């Protein structure tokens, strides 16, 4: 047999359960001792009173009755195919689940953005390629290689011809 719960002076435990008590969601085994605590504790009784006061501020909006013939009209629409039509553009399976459906499908938007970005990247890479080609070509034409080597040899103190021959030999020597 289970021991009856005694909240005693434990206001903290009572307040943790107060909303469930207020909503009539506590099992009798908890509700009865909690009620006992409320009889003795003015503070907790006050908290319960607050919840009751707040409920008083919640007035439901005006009720509307279904117009005459509403059911027959809906059934006629459903069987004339309007049910499927209503389903197609907006209805999502998630309307049957817990959470609401997204407002619109993002896929066309994402695909559009992706294709524009791809086209942009392609154009950019072509532009960069052309620019790189021009720069590389200009550099190669500006200074022929032997000239450069000659200058290097001059700097090292050797005759330009020797340097030229030496480099030519080096070039034709098999590895």
């Amino acid at each position, binding site marked *: 047999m289970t021991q009856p719960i005694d909240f005693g002076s434990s206001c903290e435990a009572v*307040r*943790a359960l*107060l*909303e*469930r008590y207020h*909503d009539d*969601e506590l099992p009798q085994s908890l509700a009865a001792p909690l009620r006992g605590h409320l009889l003795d504790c003015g503070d907790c009784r006050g*908290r319960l009173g*607050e*919840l*009751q*006061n*707040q*409920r*008083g*501020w*919640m*007035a*439901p*909006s*005006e*009720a*509307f*009755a*279904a*117009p005459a013939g*509403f*059911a*027959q*009209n*809906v*059934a*006629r*629409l*459903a*069987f004339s195919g*309007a*049910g*499927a039509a*209503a*389903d197609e553009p*907006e*209805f999502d399976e*998630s*309307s*049957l*689940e*817990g*959470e*609401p*459906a*997204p*407002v619109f499908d993002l896929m066309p938007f994402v695909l559009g953005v992706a294709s524009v970005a791809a086209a942009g990247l392609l154009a950019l890479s072509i532009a960069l390629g052309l620019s790189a080609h021009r720069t590389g070509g200009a550099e190669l034409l500006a200074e022929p290689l032997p000239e450069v080597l000659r200058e290097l040899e001059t700097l090292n103190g050797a005759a330009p011809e020797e340097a030229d021959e030496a480099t030519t030999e080096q070039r034709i020597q098999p590895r």
Partner: protein
Amino acid sequence: MTPIAPKEDARLVAETLAGSEAAFATLVERHQDRLFGLIRHYVRGQAEVEDVVQEAFLKAFSKLNTYQSRSSFSTWLQRIAVNTALDLHKRRGRSPVQTVEDPEATGGPLDPTAQGSLPPPDKGLESAELREITQSVLEKVPEVFRNVLVLREFEELSYLEIAELLDVSIGTVESRLSRARSRFREALLELHPELHRELSGPNPAAPRKRRRLGSGKGPAKATKAKRNKNKGLRDEESK
């Protein structure tokens, strides 16, 4: 309102699927009052309520073959109707206030009375005026919380019924409800700061209307009667 018997619903669903328009009309007739009552908390005006309820029934019809009798037909239908109303809000860009706090961040229920005392509405306050106040306060409450608050306070559904309808756990319902009440209270005091002051004595500078918001007992008794009536209906349904 006619008591709703699940077995009768199952028979009507089967007949509708077999092609009976009359059976579907009867199904609509049996549930229309409940849906009209529910959807009025989500949209304003009879025409809008009618549109949402009709759309919900049409959606239900088109998905009727997917309905499984795990949950009651009524719960299934209400879930479709609520989501239809919420979708409508989003389509119109009147998207409900998004919550910045995690609604599932529980850490135990909040104490909705922690922000200070709240007097009950004045007896002399006209019901239309009180409804207007409630609506304006509810509009300030993030939708995720408003949803449970409406289902609990207006439709007087149990935690279990709300959990089934929203497809969440009972613990989630409890924590959302607690936060919803805190938010409602905050919003009410923000829109009507005079309610704070009234508790610390009358304010001579307060406008006359404010005094009408003063003390007295609210419509709690009327809702209690409705709660008992609904409880009777639910008991009948579960039989």
